[in-house]
């Protein structure tokens, strides 16, 4: 296997008594779209800033493309970053912003102009080259920030909450756009996000972080279907955490549970009463209070526009799930 583009070994960063990043080991392979996912204060942004060189680690090592980055200042790292608030230069036009990094490299004027035009083309902003950032919409600014980073042809692009400042509709479109660009250009993206949906839908692999530590690394599918801990199971999507017979815990996703009026023909069944229904359009979530007092969440896909049976709040129902529907947690 070739050398990973990022190798992080026991990286630690403390702010006072708090370890923002705590002995993190991580590898990111070339061409991956890697997501760092976690709640606020989990250390994901600090880890990204350590990669970019804006923070210096207290201990541990960070190798980019095989080179130790200890003591290498940000402007000498082969990395570019798209900042959460974009950090566009307000006194420069869009084209000047995008060309800034090339001018710092000493790229010739004509080549700079060509590459800037090309980068603006890539993000569909060719008509806005002479505008100032203040004259652009949020989505356009985001694309300028992206073009400004991409024009440098970095080996590695860091994205800090790339979609957080966009409204929901724009976010979905941009999500596909980023994935398409990453694949087309064959770059490695490392993205920080607090939005699990964003991480799941975009990343080829992701690391879930909690309190400065990486608690699980894997593909979105692995992390969703085979979480290693109660924290991960609970943080990603919805999980019913059940006590398994051997003292361990079982994570059971709502969509793996069938909801029926009559006792279902599955390996496991439980009877209860619906206490809450959340209609989400594509699916409905039912919170069911079991006879033993536990509350479980089950989901039904709303396949038919007008369903044959619909359940109401307070109704008695049965829950059923297959033998292999749940996943045993290690901790």
């Amino acid at each position, binding site marked *: 296997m070739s050398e990973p583009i990022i190798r992080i070994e026991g990286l630690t960063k403390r702010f006072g008594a708090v370890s923002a990043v705590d002995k993190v080991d991580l590898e990111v392979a070339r061409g991956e779209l890697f997501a760092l996912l976690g709640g606020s204060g989990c250390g994901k942004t600090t880890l990204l800033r350590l990669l970019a060189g804006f923070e210096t680690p207290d201990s541990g090592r960070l190798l980019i493309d095989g080179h130790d980055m200890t003591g290498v200042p940000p402007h000498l790292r082969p990395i*570019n*970053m798209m900042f959460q*608030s974009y*950090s566009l230069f307000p006194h420069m036009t869009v084209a000047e912003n995008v060309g800034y*990094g090339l001018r*710092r490299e000493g790229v010739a004027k004509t080549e700079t102009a060509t590459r800037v035009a090309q980068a603006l083309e890539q993000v569909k902003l060719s008509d806005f080259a002479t505008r100032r950032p203040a004259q652009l919409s949020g989505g356009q600014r985001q694309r300028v920030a992206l073009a400004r980073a991409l024009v440098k042809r970095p080996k590695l692009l860091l994205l800090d909450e790339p979609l957080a400042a966009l409204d929901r509709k724009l976010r979905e479109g941009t999500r596909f756009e980023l994935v398409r660009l990453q694949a087309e250009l064959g770059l490695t993206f490392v993205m920080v996000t607090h939005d699990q949906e964003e991480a799941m839908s975009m990343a080829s692999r992701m690391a879930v972080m909690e309190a400065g530590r990486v608690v699980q690394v894997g593909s979105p599918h692995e992390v969703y279907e085979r979480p290693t801990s109660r924290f991960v199971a609970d943080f990603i999507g919805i999980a019913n955490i059940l006590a398994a017979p051997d003292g361990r815990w079982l994570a059971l996703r709502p969509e793996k549970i069938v909801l029926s009026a009559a006792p279902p023909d599955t390996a496991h069944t439980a009877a209860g009463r619906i206490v809450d229904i959340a209609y989400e359009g594509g699916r409905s979530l039912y919170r069911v209070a079991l006879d033993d007092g536990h509350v479980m969440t089950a989901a039904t896909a709303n396949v038919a526009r007008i369903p044959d049976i619909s359940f109401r709040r307070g109704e008695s129902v049965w829950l059923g799930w297959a033998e292999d529907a749940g996943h045993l947690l290690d901790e």
Partner: protein
Amino acid sequence: MKAVIALPFLWLGVFFLLPFALVLAIALGINAPDSVPPVELGFSLKNFVLLFTDDLYLAAWLTSLRIAATSTAVTLLLGYPMAYAIARAAPECRPLLLMLVVLPFWTSFLIRVYAWMGLLDENGLLNQFLRWSGIAADPAPILGTEWAILLGIVYAYLPFMVLPLYATLEKLDAGLLEAAADLGARPITAFLTITLPLSLPGIVAGCLLVFIPAVGEFVIPDLLGGTETLMIGKVLWDEFFTNADWPLASAIAICLLVLLVGPIALFQRQQARSLERRS
């Protein structure tokens, strides 16, 4: 609402426009030493013609501009690093550092200039130190030279440079410098391409706040400067009090205002326009 807006205009009308009209009227009059006040009103451009034909006034005017420009440049060079350091200091330290900058204002301006006289005198603290340390066995007097005037103006006006610079530098988004570094800019390049252009409004404001009063400065050249350095403010004073030539003194005041305010107003209008284009 209308009254609230009208009040400052009324204030300006009574305390600026009206006195200005009086000064203008006096400037157009003729000196009449025997009457009280010593002016004979009329419409004579004699005083203005004298100002532009007599070398003395032109020289004083040019000296004033030169000294004001030099001291503005020096305060900028001193004030910028100070303002930058304060803006980059830990937030809890900034009020204290700003306090130190404005602390001299708590003592009377005049007393502070007198204090400089004590420091710069032939046998003042500075020369005593030079002799004691052996740097200069027989140091030249500083008091009474143009150097003393420059020193005094720089000292007195430094806070007026630091404060507007601090205000713009403090607002500067540190993320922009990170973005510049990320794009390959060395710290000095990031400063020159990001910090400096974005702090331009503060530089302009600070320079105007120092330059304008420095051109017309009277107290500092009078107390620290010698007889050979003629600044326009001192000439005005002399015409008014020593020669009791009110019309000529008024003409100097009018010229000072027009020659200073004209270009500055133009400059500011251009600045405002470029700001409009920017946003």
